[in-house]
Each structure stands twice: as C-alpha cells, then as structure tokens.
C-alpha cells in the first residue's frame, strides 16, 4: 500500500457545451517520502489531477486514498503550492507563512517559533516583515513553500511552482528543494512541463499522455543527490522522459 493512491481518476470538462474527457482513468501510487514528478503535454490535465489530489476539485470517477483511507475533501495533510504562489498581498511574509497555523488556532508564541524555523530554512528571515509586492518572483515562491511547510503536511503538492522563474533562480531552488525534501522527509508530488526539472527533482517521473490522460510511463531516476540541472548524466533520463512524451500518437 502506498502513501497516496489515485485509482482510476476520471475528469470531464465542458467544452463548447460538450463534455470533454480530460483525465481518462489515472492510476498513480506514491510511496511515503517519495519525490514524484508529473510531466505531460500542455493541457493534459496534470494540474487538474493535482487539484483533485488536493481535494480542490472532485473527480468524476475513481478515488483518492491516503494511508488507505478514502478522501473526498481538502485537508491540511495535503498542502498545495500554487503556480503563482497565491500569497496574500494584505499580509506580511510572516503572517502569510503563519496563516494556516492561525486558522487552526495555534497561539501566537508557538506560531512564531514554527514560522521562524521555516523562514530560516527558506532564507526569508530578513524579509519577515515585508509585504509580498516587495519581493521578487523567486522570493514569493520561497514564501509559498514556507507557508506550505509550516502546516507539516504528509504530502506536499506543487503545481509548476518554478514555471515563472528565471533560470538562475530556478537552478538555485531546484537544489534547495532537494535539500528541503531530504531534511523534512516529505512526500512530494510536483507537476511540471519542464523535463530537465523533472529529472533533477523526481525520484520517479510519471509521464501523462495527451487527453484523455493516463499515466503512460513511470521512469525511475536512480541517481545521486543533490542533482544539478547541468549534470550531463541526467541526460539519459531526460531523453527517456522526452521520448515517452513524444510517442503520444495523434488524438
């Protein structure tokens, strides 16, 4: 039994008044402490799949199991990091990071202790009192990751969090992300359209097919960490991912 299991997930969208099948029965088992990347052609529904895992959308078929228990709503054990961060502009960095703790009624002193730890981990301490508009895109994503980590979720769901970053910032965060994963031992599911990113981060990479998507192939990236994007030895894995992405066939 895996930590998080998706069984035969189906999802339809309305397109020009007709139902369009986006997810055609996705099966994916993620083990405890695993770093799984999901790649797929654009519009394949990989983000939708992640939102279903988070409980933000309901599947039209199939079920999600966490530790063998069926899930049907969003919950603090599965926290999402959004593509654009979705930080609250009316709060300081610290208040953003503490938001989830405040909601669950944790007293201020304890909140501060927890947030200090993660602000430090994400190198945000000196920005604790800044507002989000004062931060660069990379900084914002650090805040978004810190905000998710303070919730101490079993599973961290990341929806293309580095897509809007410049390549230098991304390379830096790719290395940090691996260190955070090692330090926190979280189960991470990371959606990306960037193949090198998937090869750097993923212990396994699940390749989605075009619509209606299924998990077409799972590639084990069995390579030492921390990995860096320019490591040529990752090239073999990247090629493998790319070729399975390419062999989609017309739909």
């Amino acid at each position, binding site marked *: 039994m895996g930590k998080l299991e998706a069984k035969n997930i189906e999802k339809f969208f309305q397109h020009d008044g007709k139902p369009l099948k986006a997810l055609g029965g996705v099966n994916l088992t993620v083990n405890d402490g695993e770093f799984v990347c999901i790649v797929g052609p654009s519009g394949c529904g990989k983000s939708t799949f992640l939102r279903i895992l988070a409980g933000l959308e309901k599947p039209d078929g199939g079920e999600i199991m966490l530790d063998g228990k069926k899930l049907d709503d*969003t919950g603090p054990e599965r926290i999402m990091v959004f593509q654009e961060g979705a930080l609250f502009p009316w709060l300081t960095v610290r208040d953003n990071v503490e938001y989830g703790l405040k*909601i669950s009624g944790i007293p201020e002193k304890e909140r501060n202790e927890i947030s200090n730890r993660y602000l430090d981990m994400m190198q945000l301490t000196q920005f604790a009192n800044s507002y989000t*508009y004062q931060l660069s895109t990379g900084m914002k994503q650090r805040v978004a990751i810190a905000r998710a980590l303070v919730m101490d979720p079993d599973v961290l769901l990341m929806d293309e969090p580095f897509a809007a970053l410049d390549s230098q910032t991304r390379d830096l965060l790719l290395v940090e992300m691996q260190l955070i994963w090692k330090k926190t031992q979280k189960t991470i599911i990371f959606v990306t359209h960037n193949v090198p990113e998937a090869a750097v981060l993923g212990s396994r990479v699940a390749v989605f097919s075009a619509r209606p998507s299924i998990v077409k192939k799972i590639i084990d990236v069995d390579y030492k960490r921390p990995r860096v994007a320019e490591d040529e030895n990752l090239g073999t894995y990247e090629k493998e991912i790319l070729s399975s992405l390419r062999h989609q066939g017309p739909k």
Partner: protein
Amino acid sequence: MKANLFGKKIVFYIAIILVWQAIDSADIWPDNIFPSPIEVGEDLIYGMSDGSLFYGIGTSMWRLIVGLAIAICGGMILGIFMARVETVNQTIGSLVLGLQSIPSVAWVPLAILWFGLTDVGIIFVTAIGAIFAVTINVYTGVKNIDPSYIEAARNMGAKGSQLITTVLIPAAFPYMITGFKQGWAFAWRGVIGAELLFSFLGLGFLLNVGRQLNDVSQVIAMMLVIMGIGILIDGFVFKRLEDKVMSRWGLR
C-alpha cells in the same frame, strides 16, 4: 510640486471670491438676492458664535455616521452573499440593481410615514441611499478575488466565517473602499436631502430655514459648509484610507 498644487488651488479660490465680490459691487442684483462674500462670511461667523452651526454640523454628522455604518455593514453582508451564493445573486441581486436607481430623497415620504419626523426616519433615508452602492462594489470586489487565494485558504483549513474575515474581506478591500466612498457620497446627499424635507435639525434644516427667512446669504453659507465637509471627508478620510490600502496591497 505639492506646494505648487496647493498654491494653484489657493489662487483659484481667491480669484473666485474676488470675481464674486466684483459682481456684487457692480450692483446688478439687489443684495437680498445676490449677497456679497462678506455677508456670507458674516453669517458663517454668526452661526459659529451662537453655536447653531456646530450644532447643525454635529447633528448631520451623527446621522451620517450611523446611517453610513448601517449601509456599510448591510452592504458588506449583502454583497458577500450575492457574490458567493448564486441563488442570492439571481434573486436579490436584480432587486438591488433596481433599488439602486431610486434617488435617496424618493425614500423620504415612505420614511416619514413609517417613522414620523424623527432621527430614525432620516437615518433610514441615509442608510438606504448608500447601502446599494456599497453592496454592488462589495459584490464586484468579492467576485474579482483571485480564486487561488480562496483555494489556498481552504486548503489550509479556512472555512465559513474564517474564510470571510481572513480572505474574502481583505482580498476585496480595494473594491470595498470604492464602495464605501460612493456610499458616503450617497449618504451625505441623503442626509441633507432628508433634513431639508423633514425640516428637523441639521444642516439641511438650516438650509431650509434660510429659504423660509428669505436669507440668501444663510442659504449660500450652509451650502458652502455642506461642500466643505464633503471635501474634508473625501480628502482626509477616504483618500488616505484608499492610498494606504492601495500601497499595502501593492496596487500602486
């Protein structure tokens, strides 16, 4: 730059007063129809010295504040429900648009019949004149919230009233400020209009007294006071609030 702008304004207003005085000195109209700025100024000073002006301002402001507070609370509740519950929007929403088109003084006859010539009646007119402008802006604000804010909050466990107070209201606040500003403008018109017709204390009442006494300079003096309060509240309360919110939210 700022001093320059201020200087321009001062020069402009002095020019208006001088032109006014010049027209008066030309003796085109008799003084009881077209008073000089000095007469109007004397009336203002007289009103201040016997306290009637301050009493009038106080009464109108008190009614305004109560009426506006009711409009803001009611408008926020209504607006948030309209934005979040589709059925409420489809039913009450269409009614709100209709009611918004009724000028606040048109509520006066109903207010007099329901509440008599009382403070409650005037506050009713003030509140109802402002509430729909607040409602519509709050609705628009909540509708325009980036859905990922709401999803992120839900994902971290926010529900119901927590979601409203920690996300919906702060996220929609820049729009809400616009609503409050419009609401205040409608409320101020409503208060003065109602006081004119109720003829029961306040600046609108003093304006009406001026008319009854054929005292044109009193009428003009009260109009200047009404305008002056409008400028002060707009500039000092709402402009500052708006600037603060806009810069905090990173919109400016």
